[in-house]
């Protein structure tokens, strides 16, 4: 039987193109220190550290969890590294949560990062060979397929790009600050991977995110309201097999249904106040709305078009600005998880969605084959309050 887990500390760095002012250990420590400060805890209060980042070739620093133990106060403590490609920030937070839920540790620090400017992710993804197409090149044909399947007009992608950048302008930690970006500017920006324009693509960022996850007792001592973990789920599938549907991967469908069931959610569109979905390219917003059965087939893009996913809409998606505005790859998933916790704690600042009590976070990775999701609430019965 598992016990409740709560998020009592959240920290992140300012996400930027280059953080030349800090080393890799300095970057993760900055986020971790902020999470500890938020929880009003010290390094010695932490029982274990769970670290996540994307593939090592992105910075060329192999097995960084070994050399970062000092910076994360983990010497003599259990430290573990999680690796599930782009979804890693999410699954790292889930591993930390499970360590608390299962009674193994009482206070776990979880940290995820990427320092993209110290390496070259395009080189890493291409395995150092020519002809690399980046993640966008892999995903682009699936977006074309989604558009054909759902009958989605091309301006939907442009709308998502504008929405997320305007949200990011309310988030001081977000990398891209483009409060005045227009649909025309998105449409007229260079085509990177048809149908993805420059402004429909995530940036390359340096940044880190950290959280302190603890027990019910720990939450009672928290100086600020905790966020409660109401459900967790992870699922994966092979990246390629005959008949695989990469537009609506089965693992993504199953992961969503698992997390809804765990949290007692019957109708996510009605019972979730705010969602942070991993949207590195604009089209993934409607694709995940449908791929996680928040919207029915062909309804995801209509939610975008009608403004439902805007910060003041009925189902706000990525009020933080999302991956489209900040992409320290390894941290990008954890930022989704942390932002939902900030929202239900009422501590999201200018991008706070009023009265948000239930949040849904998702991260995906690889060839859209790894999924991690959680539902957090302002109270343990936050979902029940919405029946």
């Amino acid at each position: 039987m598992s016990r409740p887990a709560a998020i009592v500390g959240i920290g992140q760095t300012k996400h930027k193109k280059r953080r030349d002012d800090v080393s890799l250990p300095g970057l993760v420590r900055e986020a971790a220190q902020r999470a500890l400060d938020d929880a009003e805890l010290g390094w010695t209060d932490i029982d274990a550290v769970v670290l996540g980042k994307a593939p090592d070739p992105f910075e060329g620093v192999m097995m960084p969890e070994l050399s970062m133990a000092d910076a994360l106060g983990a010497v003599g403590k259990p430290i573990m590294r999680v690796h599930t490609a782009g979804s890693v920030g999410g699954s790292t937070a889930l591993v930390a949560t499970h360590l608390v839920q299962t009674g193994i540790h009482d206070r776990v620090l979880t940290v995820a990062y990427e320092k993209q400017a110290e390496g070259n992710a395009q080189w890493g993804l291409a395995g150092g060979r020519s002809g690399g197409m980046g993640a966008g090149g892999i995903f682009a044909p699936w977006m074309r397929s989604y558009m054909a399947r759902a009958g989605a007009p091309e301006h939907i992608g442009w709308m998502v790009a504008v929405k997320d950048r305007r949200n990011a302008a309310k988030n001081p930690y977000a990398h891209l600050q483009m409060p005045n970006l227009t649909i025309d500017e998105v449409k007229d920006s260079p085509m990177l991977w048809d149908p993805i324009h420059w402004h429909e693509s995530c940036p390359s960022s340096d940044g880190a995110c950290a959280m302190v996850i603890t027990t019910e007792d720990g939450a009672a001592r928290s100086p600020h309201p905790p966020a409660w973990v109401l459900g967790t789920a992870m699922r994966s599938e092979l990246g390629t097999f005959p008949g695989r549907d990469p537009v609506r991967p089965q693992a993504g469908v199953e992961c969503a249904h698992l997390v809804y069931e765990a949290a007692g959610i019957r109708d996510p569109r009605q019972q979730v106040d705010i969602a942070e979905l991993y949207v590195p390219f604009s089209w993934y917003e409607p694709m995940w709305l449908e791929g996680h059965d928040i919207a029915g087939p062909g309804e995801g893009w209509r939610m975008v078009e009608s403004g439902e996913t805007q910060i003041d809409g009925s189902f706000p998606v990525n009020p933080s600005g999302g991956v489209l505005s900040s992409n320290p790859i390894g941290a990008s998933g954890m930022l989704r998880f942390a932002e939902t916790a900030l929202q239900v704690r009422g501590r999201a600042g200018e991008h706070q969605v009023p009265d948000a009590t239930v949040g849904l976070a998702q991260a995906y990775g690889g060839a859209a084959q790894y999924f991690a999701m959680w539902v957090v609430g302002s109270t343990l019965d936050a979902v029940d309050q919405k029946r």
Partner: protein
Amino acid sequence: MTPAATEPDDDNSVKMMDYFMQLEYREPLCPVVRRYADQLLEGRLIGHQCPSCGLVYLPPRGYCPICVVETTDADETVLSDRGTVTNYTVVTPVQYYGQHETEPFVRASVTLDGGNATMNLQDLVDVPVDEVRVGMRVAAVWKPKGERSVADISNRSWGSAEGCIDGWRPTGEPDAPAEQFLGKATF
């Protein structure tokens, strides 16, 4: 690293230095992939057809992960080297160390004739990028026998024939109906 390289600048920024390293290793191919590679050198594309569900795996894996059954030489099937473009994108190359592409290029999914086997991320040759379309009929362009190499075929191969074919060239046949493929991406 010299001590000077580690000293912070006046603005307290961390001193960065480029370091290029290379690590080369070879791995023996597992028997089913070895046979796939050997057949590529002979100019043949082979797969394993699952005896349970009938799906074709290219390259063969020696098992069907969906049905969780073993596949063997008895399940081997020679696949057509002609097919239809069923999905694609035009990639604007990002410049990084080792990138030689400078102009937009196409990467396509080619579904082979006579079954469900699809090769992804394929290069198309002798066709301008703006003429590529779903439904286009194509055929593999094999390298001359002596010039084929399977050095880039690995146990983790996703169905590459790189090193043995130069890509896929339009055959000039009438297109297959695009509606048959649009919205039905596979990978």
